[in-house]
């Protein structure tokens, strides 16, 4: 008899206690649209269909928590960037708002409820919260560095860190102030919030950049929300081993890491102080065999689940060409190896 609910498992993991098994999550992302039979455009423009896609994904592959993915350029678009939505691929940026640095002075922090696309996302969050029963729902916000990179262009921003550090700090100040407004607004829909820093991976930045231009702003944001009793999680894509110590140093309470990063290192470094999510490699959801998926899940659980404070999760959003049977392999393996 299974008497534990999804919420019980998540709460237990947050408190360092034990339910029947390790809680699981899958970042469905755009793949949820595919599961629900909606087009990319429908997924990214209709709040109803966006929420329904996640509800359908949850019904097909019940997780213990779900993130309403939104789209990663949502905030950049709110500041005037043009985003293209290809038929069968994730959206990408067509224009940069801060091609010229001087244009930063012209940017203002908008009222999120007066920006169409942001309203779309807020409505999707509300709908997901009421439509998905029994599973804790979270929203997503771009981290300040990722938004800075989306506004300025990552390569330019990297050069700016050397050529014009003052500008980078000004831009980070702006995106940090915006994150305070936006995260609070998403939170007001009644769901949790995770902050995604796709562009803070060491696949693209250096430890020096993290320490100088990102860490202070992460610390500020996390503290700002802690004072308001809101505990936001942080997700960084790709490889973060060289900055792991600094990331933990920000006081982050929940950290989600991607397949290329070392779960073992994070478990050792965080010493039970941080709730960890991750880090089953996403390519396995598209191309892995049952055996490969089982082995990856088992390794994650063996590495991280012993002291609770762990949510077994795909390292990042699963690929658009994922396979249903592979998600089943993932959940089956979690059930098989995740019992406490």
């Amino acid at each position, binding site marked *: 008899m299974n008497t534990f609910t999804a919420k019980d498992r998540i709460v237990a993991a947050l408190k360092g206690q034990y339910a029947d098994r390790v809680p699981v999550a899958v970042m469905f992302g755009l793949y949820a649209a595919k599961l629900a039979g909606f087009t990319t455009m429908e997924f990214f423009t209709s709040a109803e269909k966006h929420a329904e896609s996640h509800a359908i994904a949850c019904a097909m592959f019940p997780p213990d928590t779900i993130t309403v993915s939104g789209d990663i350029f949502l905030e950049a678009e709110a500041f005037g960037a043009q985003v293209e939505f290809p038929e069968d691929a994730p959206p990408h940026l067509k224009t940069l708002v801060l091609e010229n640095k001087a244009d930063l002075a012209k940017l203002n922090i908008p009222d999120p409820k007066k920006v169409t696309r942001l309203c779309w996302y807020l409505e999707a969050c509300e709908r997901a919260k009421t439509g998905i029963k029994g599973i804790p729902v979270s929203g997503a916000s771009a981290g300040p560095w990722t938004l800075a990179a989306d506004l300025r262009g990552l390569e330019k921003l990297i050069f700016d860190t*050397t050529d014009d550090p003052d500008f980078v700090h000004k831009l980070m100040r702006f995106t940090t102030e915006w994150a305070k407004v936006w995260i609070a607004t998403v939170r007001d829909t009644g769901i949790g919030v995770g902050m995604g820093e796709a562009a803070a991976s060491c*696949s693209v930045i250096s*430890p020096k950049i993290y320490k100088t231009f990102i860490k202070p702003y992460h610390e500020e944001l996390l503290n700002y929300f802690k004072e308001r009793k809101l505990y936001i999680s942080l997700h960084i894509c790709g490889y973060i081993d060289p900055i792991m110590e600094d990331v933990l140093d920000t006081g982050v309470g929940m950290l989600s890491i991607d397949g290329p990063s070392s779960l073992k290192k994070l478990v050792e470094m965080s010493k039970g102080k941080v709730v960890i999510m991750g880090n089953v490699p996403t390519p396995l959801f598209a191309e892995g065999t049952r055996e490969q998926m089982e082995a990856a899940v088992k390794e994650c659980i063996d590495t991280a689940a012993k002291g609770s404070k762990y949510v077994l999760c795909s390292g990042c959003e699963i690929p658009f*060409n994922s396979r249903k049977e592979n998600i089943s392999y993932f959940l089956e393996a979690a059930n098989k190896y995740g019992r406490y």
Partner: protein
Amino acid sequence: MSELKLISEGVVEGDAKKVGELTKRAIDEGIDVVKILDDGLIAGMEMIGELFERKEAFVPELLLAARAMRAGMELLNPLLVGSGVKPIGKVVLGTVKGDVHNIGKDLVGIMLNCAGFEVIDVGVNAPPEKFIDIVSGGGIDIVGMSALLTTSMPMMKTTIEALDAAGLRKQVKIMIGGAVVTQDYAESIGADGYASNAAEAVNKAKELLKLKGDDK
């Protein structure tokens, strides 16, 4: 000699201004331009490449080093024409259709360039026809494709198939790379080589060039 060492140090530090000034001085002093290129600029790029491979340098340092090297190259290029330096091979390089990520591809291009390859960059979001166009023009040794997204990865296979259908596959070696790409994947789609980073890509390209020579 120590002058050239200063140039390579400037490249490693990513200091474009310093590299430009030192290169100009070296030229004015009459140091052989090929020597400035090899023992100054390229030596510096090789050093930063090694640091990168040892995870002691990261992508930003590579980008800065590449920019510093370009500052020197701009001064050397007009003088190198006619100096008899021939490329060791010709590469067409691009990020495949459906993917607009350029940083990794650009770094591979710069590193290949430093190693003596001529690089034709077809940019990002490059459809198979673009690669075919260049290869059918003749003289291409290697086709290099990049993809950062799992969604755009299959386009690498499509491009290889398109080269095959156009009867051009056997003329070239194909290498692929990008955050989501693996050696296994390269083999599964019939690519000749895979590299996990820009420095490795140079070694792989040289290796493929040798194989290509053996084919003849």
